[in-house]
């Protein structure tokens, strides 16, 4: 039973399309995150949610919209996909937002935009 799961694992799509990536955690954590790992291997935070509330919103284009229907799920919707969106997207969760708390990562979704 996977702690943090993401679907799909691979996503190949054309420029201009809209796509979603789903994330679920069964750890009972309060906080969930989306990270992007680009071609240079930088792992950068995009968003974090705490109990369904948006807490961190880094400088991310408006085409990216996270949605948290409940604290166990955090989905990422991307509109009008661009070539530069090609990357690996990781979902993560942590027990809490405040105070030191390690993050548990999903397996990643490799998005390729052609």
């Amino acid at each position, binding site marked *: 039973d996977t702690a*943090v799961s993401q679907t799909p694992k691979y996503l190949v799509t054309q420029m201009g399309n809209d796509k979603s990536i789903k994330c679920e955690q069964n750890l009972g954590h309060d906080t969930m995150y989306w990270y992007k790992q680009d071609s240079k291997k930088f*792992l950068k935070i995009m968003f*974090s949610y705490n109990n369904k509330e948006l807490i*961190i919103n880094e400088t991310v284009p408006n085409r990216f919209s996270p949605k948290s229907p409940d604290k166990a799920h955090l989905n990422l919707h991307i509109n009008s996909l661009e070539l530069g969106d090609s990357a690996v997207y990781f979902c993560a969760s942590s027990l809490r937002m*405040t105070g*030191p708390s390690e993050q548990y990562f*999903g*397996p990643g979704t490799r998005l390729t935009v052609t």
Partner: protein
Amino acid sequence: DQQVKQNSPSLSVQEGRISILNCDYTNSMFDYFLWYKKYPAEGPTFLISISSIKDKNEDGRFTVFLNKSAKHLSLHIVPSQPGDSAVYFCAASVEKGTYKYIFGTGTRLKVLA
């Protein structure tokens, strides 16, 4: 401006020897540091952490050392095992309250049998 740097993209070590992975940071406000291990096609997994009030934390074969004056931390793995072959990321927290972590670019460790 990369605030957390891992200047060695790769490292090879013989099985049984010590592996030392290094990480430098520039932001003196960082107060919590973590190391993650990542296998191919998997997400990073938490390994060990250290608070800025300590200079050493040990967990089995893994020890993290923090040198605040040098803004440097290192991960020691003793003895190294082939299963330790992975990419290792260090991460640092930017601010208290919301622990947003800044990650380094990773060091690929290869432990040779």
